[in-house]
């Protein structure tokens, strides 16, 4: 017999070992997230997927589904927290959407649209961050990095290259590159690497592709991120 739990009152089937996020995605239910991607190990750092699990809060991407569990996600309180977290991400970096070629395809922006964020609200940090344009095919724009570590996980677990890492702590945490010079050009990073594709913001972008699709015709320009879940979120067919 299939095991189930409820998510906002809806019955969600799951298989043993699946997380709440995996089961929800397989059932076509969107839970806001940024650091999660089905191809990589859960990270649990962005906290956007925080849900109420039987009265306590936990990340949907790291908590396993259990029989009879009652989970709440689309509540006013949780979405208010998610909006505040998203606003913090905006002010901690330099997210100037009108100047970003990822605009319209950016998951940070799309989550903010989904949550109805009209303003970053908090005082902007405007941190000074380096841009690394040394690589012939890949641009590293740290101003837009949200430290989700998707590139770190992709480079380590899929590409087997360990090109990226996070250095420093707290507000000084930053994306670093594994080469003696610290420059991307001096790594074995290739534009065909999974790490070059997986960034949810415009922090890692392939050069000379920015405006292939014009602004206004991009993925999230007309579709809420809840309608276009990340490919691979469906349960693998047996």
């Amino acid at each position: 017999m299939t095991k189930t739990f409820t998510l906002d009152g809806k019955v969600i089937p799951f298989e043993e070992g699946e997380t709440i996020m995996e089961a929800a995605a397989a059932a076509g239910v969107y839970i806001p997230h940024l650091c999660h991607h089905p191809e990589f190990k859960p990270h649990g750092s962005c906290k956007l997927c925080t849900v109420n699990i039987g009265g306590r809060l936990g990340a949907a991407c790291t908590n396993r589904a259990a029989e009879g569990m009652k989970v709440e996600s689309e509540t006013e309180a949780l979405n208010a927290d998610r909006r505040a977290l998203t606003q913090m991400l905006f002010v901690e970096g330099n997210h100037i959407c009108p100047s970003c070629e990822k605009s319209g395809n950016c998951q940070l922006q799309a989550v903010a649209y989904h949550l109805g964020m009209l303003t970053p609200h908090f005082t902007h940090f405007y941190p000074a961050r380096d841009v690394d344009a040394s690589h012939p095919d890949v641009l590293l724009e740290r101003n837009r990095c949200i430290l989700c570590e998707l590139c770190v996980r992709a480079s380590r677990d899929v590409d087997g290259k360990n090109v990226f890492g996070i250095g420093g702590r707290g507000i000084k945490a930053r994306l670093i590159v594994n080469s003696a010079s610290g420059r991307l050009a001096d790594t074995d990073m290739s534009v065909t690497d999974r790490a070059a594709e997986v960034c949810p913001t415009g922090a890692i972008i392939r050069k000379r592709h920015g405006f292939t699709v014009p602004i206004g015709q991009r993925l999230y320009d007309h579709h809420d991120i809840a309608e276009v879940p990340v490919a691979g979120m469906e349960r693998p067919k047996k």
Partner: protein
Amino acid sequence: MTKLKVATCSLAGCFGCHMSLLDIDEKLFELVKAVEFDRSPITDIKHCGPCDIGIVEGGVCNAENVHVLKEFRRNCRILVAMGACAITGGIPALRNNVDLWDCFQEVYHYGIGLEKGQIPNDPELPLPFDRVHPINEVVRIDYFLPGCPPPADAIWKFLTDLAAGREPKLDYDMLHYD
């Protein structure tokens, strides 16, 4: 029917949001039936008087911007931040991590086609700030209307909602940060 009094101004912005306001085209005729403009580029009034709605485009990049913004806050019952610059600092905020003196040098000394450029220093020029700030970091803002610029339809929806006393609400297609 008493007309709503509306004032608009552009601080550190490009006037693109005002152009988007004009882009509501023939509905402007409907708008002027319900609205009377105080300070705005249409009227060329220099100081904002008591108003129902104040619409501010652009961020804060110099002392005059603060002066104008505070005047708007004092006089406007409802203050709206319109566009990316007013809400986040926008494109002008790209200079926030460049030394102000280096900025001036680049613009007035090393710019293409310039010879023996001079950095303007007339005492009447407002004091520039080393950073560009969103306007909510200076005064309280009641509503935010994002976009670069916000689409004309979004401005129309926003203003008609406000004028009718409804809580302004944007459809998904009208909510853009770029």
